[in-house]
């Protein structure tokens, strides 16, 4: 339905490619911006397009992070020994072991998280509305706590990621572009998905799931695939983020339910949920505001973000794209078709 697309492909592409060269001081902040775009886009697959508001999508970010950590470490060491030594032993690995580990780790993170989503979806999709939201939140919180007790992966103390074999700038540059590509891939995937029958089916589930069932739509199948797809990209983003941070820890880094977990939702709502571009615009605006308040209103940054979220949900529920759609319906193809003209 969304035939309208802001002419932003090229500017965003140019900005994305040029940024680390033109403003190298903030490469990592902009890498995180792309992760935010990926967060908002993947949250919106369920939250906006399918009407299932998950508060626990951060689960797949964390699962991806742990999966890649384990895969990367196991390329050159026994995982249990590695975590038990907590950095005291200097494990040796070659460049090839590092890069193979990273590549395999990222892929495994995506696939593993997708499988996890399918497994959890089997039970969670029996829940509706607020019960689904709270159920998913509970799972993400539990996951953080459980990982904190599992010593094989370092328990609450976490585990250090293998160190990038090169300069710090080289590391930033590489992970910057990996994050950028991950966001582009997510965008292209969503853009394609929403143009297919699949997009219509999840919209139908959002508007009236009982009607969709009564019309014979395989609702559970669509819901499971949708969540797995979101989890796939989230898992990859977790793998990249863990490597950027260099240290994986359950509560603050892997399963930050109250920050990243909520940002996902806030960004989609700000930009306009249920649209392709809404989450992207929301993520960009949100991230810039966040960085701005962190820089200039340190101490008040959480208050500022809180106010933004409140203003958004109280006065501006439709978000940026929803507002545009109300203002310029014909730009979105919402028009009366005169019969004569069409024949």
């Amino acid at each position: 339905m969304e035939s309208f697309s802001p002419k932003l492909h090229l500017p965003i592409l140019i900005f994305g490619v040029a940024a680390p060269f033109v403003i190298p001081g903030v490469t990592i902040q902009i890498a995180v911006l792309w992760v935010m775009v990926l967060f908002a886009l993947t949250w919106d697959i369920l939250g906006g397009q399918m009407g299932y508001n998950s508060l626990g999508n951060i689960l797949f970010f964390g699962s991806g992070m742990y999966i890649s950590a384990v895969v990367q470490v196991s390329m050159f060491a026994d995982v249990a020994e590695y975590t038990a030594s907590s950095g005291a032993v200097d494990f040796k690995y070659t460049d090839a072991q590092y890069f193979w580990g990273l590549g395999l780790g990222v892929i495994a993170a995506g696939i593993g998280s997708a499988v996890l989503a399918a497994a959890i979806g089997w039970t969670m999709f029996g829940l509706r509305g607020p019960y689904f939201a709270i159920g998913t939140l509970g799972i993400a919180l539990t996951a953080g706590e459980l990982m904190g007790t599992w010593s094989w992966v370092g328990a609450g103390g976490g585990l250090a990621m293998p160190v990038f074999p090169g300069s710090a700038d080289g590391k930033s540059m590489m992970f910057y572009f990996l994050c950028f590509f991950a966001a582009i891939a997510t965008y292209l995937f969503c853009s394609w998905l929403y143009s297919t029958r699949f997009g219509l089916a999840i919209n139908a589930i959002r508007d009236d799931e009982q009607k969709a069932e009564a019309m014979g739509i395989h609702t559970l199948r669509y819901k499971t695939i949708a969540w797995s797809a979101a989890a796939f990209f989230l898992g990859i983003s977790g793998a990249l983020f863990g490597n950027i941070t260099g240290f994986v820890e359950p509560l603050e880094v892997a399963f930050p339910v109250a920050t990243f977990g909520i940002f996902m939702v806030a960004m989609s709502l700000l930009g306009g949920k249920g649209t392709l571009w809404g989450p992207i615009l929301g993520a960009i605006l949100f991230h810039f505001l966040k960085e701005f308040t962190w820089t200039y209103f340190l101490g008040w940054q959480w208050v500022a973000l809180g106010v933004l979220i409140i203003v958004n949900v109280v006065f501006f529920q439709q978000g940026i794209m929803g507002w545009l759609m109300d203002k310029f319906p014909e730009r979105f193809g919402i028009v009366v078709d005169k019969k004569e003209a069409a024949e």
Partner: protein
Amino acid sequence: MTDTPVIELNGVSKSFGGVVANHSISLKVPGGGITGLIGPNGSGKTTLFNSIVGYHPIDEGSIRFKGQEISDYRVPQIARLGLLRTFQQTRIYSNMNCIDNMLISIPHRKLGFRDMFKNRGDKATMEEVDRLLDFVGLYEKRRLISGDLSFGQQKLLEFAMALMNRPEVLLLDEPTAGINPTLINGLIDRLRRANEELGITLFVIEHNMRVIMNMAQSIYCLAHGELLAHGTPDEIQNDQRVIDAYLGAH
């Protein structure tokens, strides 16, 4: 019209707590025809439809679709067999435009994994959408958000969506309720054409006696959850029990 019933109910009962909504109902809906279901408010008509399409488990009895027992099937499974229903409280996908409502209403019977990711609609499907929207008089509104249509228009859209699904049997729950009286004749005509030209068996709940007496070949009447009478429109119209049930209910 053939003699083998497409839907056959035997002793179907359904209670909600202490309320016996349906008590031991047995009936047959012959293939290819139009069968009516009437009865005062609260007599259990919608409950019976819900039981047939698997919306809730029944307490007792058997429900057969073309000879196959379906009383423990779930809603989407039954829909995919080709047994479809519309809702008394009209239900459409209200944030989507009419075209999209139609496109996702294609039959899901044989959709495999790869079909889920196909184009929204190929040329033939788009033509079908246009033709059916035109059939119900919604062609000009096809790009509007369906939730913004009037109640009657939404009802027509729901009917067009049902036709898009190419069901074998269509259960219609009060198709003319809320439709402008001047449009009712047009709607009757469309229901008849769906039955005759597309060969869809209709099973229709209707309060408008003129409508149902005109359309149906055979009518069942419920009262207080029990099957009260069955016959041709003439027989039903002159059945003293039916007259009493309606008078008693008002």
